[in-house]
């Protein structure tokens, strides 16, 4: 049943899969993000308490959700890499980390900009904000740890372990608004009963949530393909790509000298 997975243990197959999936993810991201953002910014009704400042939600919530989603998938990749020694999973850890870090940064910044008019402060040291900040530091730790080893197998193992240990932070972020007294509002759409948000506001939010997921997927495809290329630098299929590039460069150089002579 799981036989279809086998070919993807080969790096070249995964590399090709990345580039085959890329256009789908990219176009879905463009369509959902553009329509969701325009709908949310201009057509959704304003909030009865927060006025038009609530429109920041269309960027704050998707980036915050996927900052945690990316971290969880990064930790799962790390676990797969450590337990089953699958090199592609280890490479995926380092492919996901920068994108997750950027999403976390965006969630923190948009939250601060939203907090200023609503709470009267850019930043407060409460549970939700602090745990999200720790998530950013975990991402940066994974990136720094990976870059601090010359041997990339050791680097991948060390950063995978950090990613796995740090995953404890994800449920803490999620439940922080329930476990501690906080300024941050509770969940609105991930509640088991009816979501406490009007459908006119919810639809563009769902569009942008899916849009940021597609952005994440597209960027991870690109970055994973690049990591596979670096990892397989000594393999024939990558060498063929490199020599093709060298030939092209020489050809254009020859053309240029011919043109000069004429």
């Amino acid at each position, binding site marked *: 049943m799981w036989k279809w997975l086998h070919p993807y243990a080969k790096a070249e197959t995964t590399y090709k899969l990345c580039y085959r999936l890329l256009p789908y993810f990219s176009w879905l991201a463009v369509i959902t993000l553009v329509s969701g953002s325009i709908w949310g910014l201009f057509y959704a009704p304003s909030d009865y308490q927060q006025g038009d400042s609530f429109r920041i939600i269309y960027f704050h919530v998707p980036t915050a959700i996927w900052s945690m989603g990316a971290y969880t998938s990064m930790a799962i990749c790390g676990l797969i890499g450590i337990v089953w020694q699958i090199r592609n999973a280890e490479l995926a850890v380092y492919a996901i980390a920068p994108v997750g870090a*950027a999403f976390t940064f965006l969630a923190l910044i948009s939250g601060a*900009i*939203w907090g200023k008019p609503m709470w009267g402060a850019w930043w407060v040291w409460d549970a939700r904000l602090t745990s999200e900040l720790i998530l950013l530091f975990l991402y940066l730790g994974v990136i720094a740890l990976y870059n601090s080893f010359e041997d990339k197998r050791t680097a991948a193992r060390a950063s995978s372990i950090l990613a796995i240990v740090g995953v404890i932070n994800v449920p803490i972020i999620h439940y922080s608004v329930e476990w501690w007294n906080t300024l941050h509002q509770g969940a609105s759409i991930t509640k088991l009963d009816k979501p406490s948000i009007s459908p006119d506001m919810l639809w563009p939010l769902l569009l942008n949530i899916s849009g940021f997921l597609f952005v994440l997927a597209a960027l991870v495809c690109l*970055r994973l393909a*690049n990591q596979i290329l670096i990892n397989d*630098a000594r393999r024939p299929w990558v060498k063929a790509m490199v020599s093709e590039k060298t030939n092209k460069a020489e050809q254009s150089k020859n053309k240029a000298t011919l043109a000069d002579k004429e």
Partner: protein
Amino acid sequence: MHFNSISEALAMGGYGPYVWSTVGIVIAVLLFLIIHSMTAKKRTLTMLRLEQERADKIALAKQSNDDYQSKPNHN
């Protein structure tokens, strides 16, 4: 459309600077990330090409040195 005019939409009910700065920062960070990810393959191939050229040069130099050494009476 929720707003009556473009200037009203830009004002965002007095929250314009907050909403639009968020939009600007999101676009800037995403653009940076997209460009950085899209040029990654090119950077890698250039790096590998330079490495290959360097290795070729070293091999060539070694070869000519060996040829020189193996010739008799070169002093």
